[in-house]
């Protein structure tokens, strides 16, 4: 069985080929069956792999399955193999990708049913699953890089899925370009890894790295570059602005790529290379600070957004920032745990938002919604669960994962915890704000929309329910000891962190401190829920209209802290001016000037010379005679 793990990426790829070639020539039902079936098959295989690894872990083994497919290329001492590695970490990632991926495929069957590009959409989705599984299954950095680039491509294709809209197409371009900056970091990091360790295989690299001293400058460079790669893919400062714009894509895409899977690739990569990171504390500090800053900044922006998907997008950025905070303070398991729970509740929230948007006929502005809980009961209940989960109210999934990160942050530096807690408060506030604005109060849309309000079909509600259940119980797989659990996830993942465990911080807080932290964050979230209830349900405050002037912090948040404008002024405009300058002075005057100058010279020379070609035969003969005489004279006198 384990030798067949290459089937996990291959089956979605076949799905991609079939759907890509067939396009709209086959019935939509067939396309849907191929698309969903391929991912379902991968999911079943992933389950087998998971159980095999779990059994091996039970027996005390490390549970690694290494499958060498073929040698890709050998140049000098560089030897790269196309080989797959399934271990506890990739097994869980596989389950997330194919499991959540399947639910989202199922959801898309209904959500995209009336879209002209149905076949194309499923082809892209399957291609994404293919690349994402390659990313997590690769046993060396280069194979991971294939997946890394591939998911970026799929992200581009799917954000720009409705490419006829110019702003959607430019959002896709923005995502692609910003990811490219990160990918450059990955590429250079690979060169450094190759130079330092002579190999790209995880096993070789990590074994060699384990014996390096803490704070080695080479490791610092490598990890910083890897972190740059992660900031691109996982939308951290300074490369986060593409993710909110990526909401231009269809909602299932936002759920699958820009919430559950692709954006967590950066965290997966850091967790995978945890030994390199634990050995360079400087990078860890930077990662923690950047993660926290991103979390706070994105949460601050999310508070005033009125587009339902934009709120969720900033929420995703914020949660990803949390994960990087976790990584930075050494809570690798905690961060990965948050990846897992976040995949559940954020996919759920996005799909719920999609269901709302579907019912509202592509209306995304929350100011036009309200009072939808009666019309969309299933969506409401599931989104309610998702909101509780993301806000960190026990005993739902988000509480456990967020709390683990915060506990580690507290132990590392209480200031980090305080800011993290503040972010958590913002999270609870804006999520409940979203919920109240959408589902409570009076309906604020048009009569037309009101007539058509409907609960979504089963293809859309079933994934919602499944994800809601997972959001409820997902947290129980890693209950901290303070609450009588066993850290099952941490135990399962232990082999991944074995090499670095000597340098890693372990959580040594007393149980009472942990209780206190949990109580404070859970209580804070509840209070924020009540505050939001007061403001948006009891007082029925509506977010101000776009035209209405806002001021102070509110304006700052509503205008997204002017980050886009800042980048525009700092990077885009200077680049534009530079290219205009190059165009004017180098291209037009320089290169064109030279080329045209050569042409003009010969034209001018020809004009001058042709004056001799007068057409007067006598003149020609005269010249001929003079020339003959001149040659003769020359011949005579030169002898």
């Amino acid at each position, binding site marked *: 069985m384990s030798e067949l793990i290459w089937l996990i990426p291959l089956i979605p790829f076949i799905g991609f080929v079939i759907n890509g070639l067939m396009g709209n020539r086959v019935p939509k039902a067939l396309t849907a069956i191929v698309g969903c079936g391929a991912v379902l098959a991968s999911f079943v295989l992933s389950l087998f792999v998971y159980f095999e690894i779990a059994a091996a872990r039970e027996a005390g083994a490390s549970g690694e399955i290494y499958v060498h497919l073929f040698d890709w290329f050998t140049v000098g001492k560089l030897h790269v193999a196309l080989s797959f590695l399934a271990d506890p970490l990739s097994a869980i990632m596989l389950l997330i990708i194919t499991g959540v991926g399947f639910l989202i495929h199922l959801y898309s069957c209904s959500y995209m049913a009336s879209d002209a590009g149905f076949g194309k959409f499923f082809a892209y989705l399957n291609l994404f699953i293919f690349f994402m599984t390659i990313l997590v299954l690769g046993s060396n950095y280069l194979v991971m890089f294939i997946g890394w680039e591939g998911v970026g491509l799929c992200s581009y294709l799917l954000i720009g899925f409705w490419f006829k809209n110019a702003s959607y197409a430019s959002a896709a371009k923005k995502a692609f370009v910003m990811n490219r900056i990160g990918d450059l970091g990955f590429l250079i990091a690979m060169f450094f890894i190759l130079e330092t360790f002579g190999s790209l295989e995880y096993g070789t690299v990590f074994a060699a790295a384990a014996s390096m001293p803490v704070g080695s400058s080479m490791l610092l460079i490598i990890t910083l570059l890897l972190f740059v790669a992660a900031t691109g893919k996982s939308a951290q400062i300074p490369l986060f602005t593409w993710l909110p714009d990526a909401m231009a894509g269809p909602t299932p895409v936002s759920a699958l790529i820009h919430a559950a899977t692709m954006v967590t690739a950066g965290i997966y990569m850091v967790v995978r290379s945890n030994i390199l990171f634990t050995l360079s504390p400087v990078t860890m500090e930077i990662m923690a600070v950047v993660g926290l800053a991103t979390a706070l900044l994105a949460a601050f922006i999310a508070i005033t957004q009125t587009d339902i998907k934009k709120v969720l997008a900033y929420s995703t950025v914020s949660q990803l920032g949390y994960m990087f905070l976790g990584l930075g303070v050494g809570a690798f398991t905690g961060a990965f745990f948050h990846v897992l729970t976040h995949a559940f509740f954020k996919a759920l929230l996005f799909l719920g938002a999609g269901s709302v948007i579907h019912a509202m006929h592509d209306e995304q502005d929350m100011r036009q919604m309200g009072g939808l809980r009666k019309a969309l009961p299933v969506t409401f209940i599931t989104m309610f669960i998702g909101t509780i989960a993301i806000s960190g109210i026990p005993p739902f999934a988000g509480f456990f994962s967020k709390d683990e990160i915060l506990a580690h942050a507290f132990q590392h530096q209480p200031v980090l915890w305080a800011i993290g807690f503040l972010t958590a408060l913002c999270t609870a506030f804006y999520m409940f704000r979203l919920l109240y604005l959408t589902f409570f109060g009076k309906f604020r849309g048009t009569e037309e929309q009101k007539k058509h309000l409907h609960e979504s079909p089963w293809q859309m509600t079933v994934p919602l329910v499944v994800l809601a259940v997972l959001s409820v119980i997902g947290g129980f797989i890693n209950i901290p000891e303070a609450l009588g659990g066993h850290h099952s996830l941490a135990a399962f993942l232990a082999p991944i962190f074995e090499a670095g465990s000597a340098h890693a911080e372990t959580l040594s807080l007393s149980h009472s401190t942990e209780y206190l932290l949990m109580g404070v964050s859970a209580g804070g979230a509840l209070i924020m829920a009540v505050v939001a209830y007061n403001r948006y349900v009891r007082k029925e405050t509506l977010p101000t209209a776009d035209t209405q002037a806002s001021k102070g912090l509110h304006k700052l948040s509503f205008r997204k802290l002017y980050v886009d404008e800042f980048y525009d002024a700092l990077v885009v405009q200077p680049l534009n001016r530079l290219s205009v300058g190059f165009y004017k002075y180098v291209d037009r005057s320089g290169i064109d000037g030279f080329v045209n100058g050569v042409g003009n010279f010969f034209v001018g020379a020809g004009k001058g010379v*042709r004056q001799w*070609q*007068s*057409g*007067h*035969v*006598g003149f020609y*003969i*005269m010249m001929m*005679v003079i020339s003959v005489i001149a040659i003769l004279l020359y011949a005579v006198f030169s002898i």
Partner: protein
Amino acid sequence: MENIVTQIQGVPLNHYIIFCSIIFAIGVTGVLIRRNVIIIMMSIELMLNAVNLLLAAFSAYRGDPTGQVFVFFIMALAAAEVAVGLAIIIMVYRNTKSVDIESLSKLRW
């Protein structure tokens, strides 16, 4: 044959050279200053024949028949040249109703 050579040698070589140069110069001048195409053709013939005469004279003085052979070549060439040239002149005349060499200046660029 011996007789002809002696007769040719009866005139000093310098006289031949001066005479031929004069005829050649007349030919060149005719080509340069006359505008009638037919006269120009005739001047060209004059130049060719000046050369022919000189070749024959040198040939006789040096006792080398190659020069006389060349004279025949030049004659044949001159005949061909005149044939082509006259044909061109006829065509020019048909087109322009004139044999003025300047009427051809319209052929320039």
